């Protein structure tokens, strides 16, 4: 007796193909991870707030005008030179640090700057003030912020390398993976405290 059924197409591998495609799409679709330059804003000051008097030499003035031109401490500068200028300012260490909780931090013993009288006293006193115009391009503004952050990162990396043998970036990575490690935490805090990021954004001017 002849068999009536037709031979079936083998479909056993169809599921494999489907999964292969699925995995391919899963891998290739880039979930756009949001990354950016993070910043912490200062709290809103109370109405009767009197700003503390800061010595002129402890302020690093960065101005950006509406033509996207950069002026640092009264002189024009290219963005590529900003990082080194900021590093020289922060790392100057010309005087003694501020008194925190009754403990004077004394002169900066890890600074490698020129210790000029005309520049900052101590990294924890050094304030970078960025004044931009309302018409400044955001891209340029962020570039300036980035250069300033880079200056801090390089100084922190240098100090961390000296003290612990690894850069600050690596130290932070290690801490992120192991949040319970008190030793790592203390190290991260110590570096952060040695070179605190003090970048203030002044109220922008308006050219038009």
């Amino acid at each position: 007796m002849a068999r009536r059924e037709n031979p079936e197409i083998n479909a056993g591998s169809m599921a494999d193909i489907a999964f292969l495609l699925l995995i391919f799409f899963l891998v290739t679709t880039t979930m756009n991870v949001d990354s950016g330059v993070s910043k912490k804003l200062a709290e809103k000051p109370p109405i009767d707030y009197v700003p503390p008097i800061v010595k002129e030499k402890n302020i690093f003035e960065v101005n950006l005008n509406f033509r996207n031109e950069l002026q640092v401490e009264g002189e024009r500068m290219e963005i590529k030179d900003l990082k080194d200028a900021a590093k020289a300012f922060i790392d100057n260490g010309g005087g003694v640090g501020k008194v925190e909780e009754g403990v004077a931090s004394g002169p900066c013993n890890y600074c490698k700057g020129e210790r000029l009288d005309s520049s900052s006293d101590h990294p924890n006193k050094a304030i970078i003030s960025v004044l931009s115009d309302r018409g400044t391009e955001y891209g340029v503004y962020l570039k300036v912020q980035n250069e300033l952050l880079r200056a801090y990162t390089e100084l922190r990396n240098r100090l961390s390398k000296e003290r612990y043998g690894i850069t600050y970036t690596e130290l932070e990575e290690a801490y992120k993976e192991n949040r319970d490690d008190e030793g790592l935490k203390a190290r991260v805090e110590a570096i952060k405290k040695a070179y605190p990021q003090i970048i203030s954004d002044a109220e922008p001017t308006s050219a038009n």
Partner: protein
Amino acid sequence: MSKFRKKKKGMPAVNTASLPDIVFMLLFFFMVTTTMRETELQIENPRLPTATEVKKLEHKSLVSTIYVGKAVDPKFGTGFNRIQLNDKISTSEEVPAFIINARSKVSEAEVPFMTTSIKADKESNVGIITDIRLKLRDVNALKISYSASKGE
């Protein structure tokens, strides 16, 4: 010899056993891709500036995004200073309400960890960013991230 006289009758039916697989695959694919952006962009995709000191934003549920750039709809003008909150073009005046609304969606303990990500176009102006920043400060949303892509 009837053994060799097989007669083919009609077309063989296409096997549909793998159809569920294909359907599931598509389903997964769309599930994955549609969660990427909850809001539709009303402004042209901002050309993010580049920076080297970028940090990845963790905890997506704690991030609220403000877009700044050029509106797609020409009735909002051609400047690069339009703000998009949720899925409509707004002004900086509406930023506090937007933040408070975002806060109501997370538990109170997590509020201090909330971050505002500002996705602004390279050609936007600092003025509009400052306006946003002042409004954020008013509602004590102090952690912000200027969205940028990594690179020189």
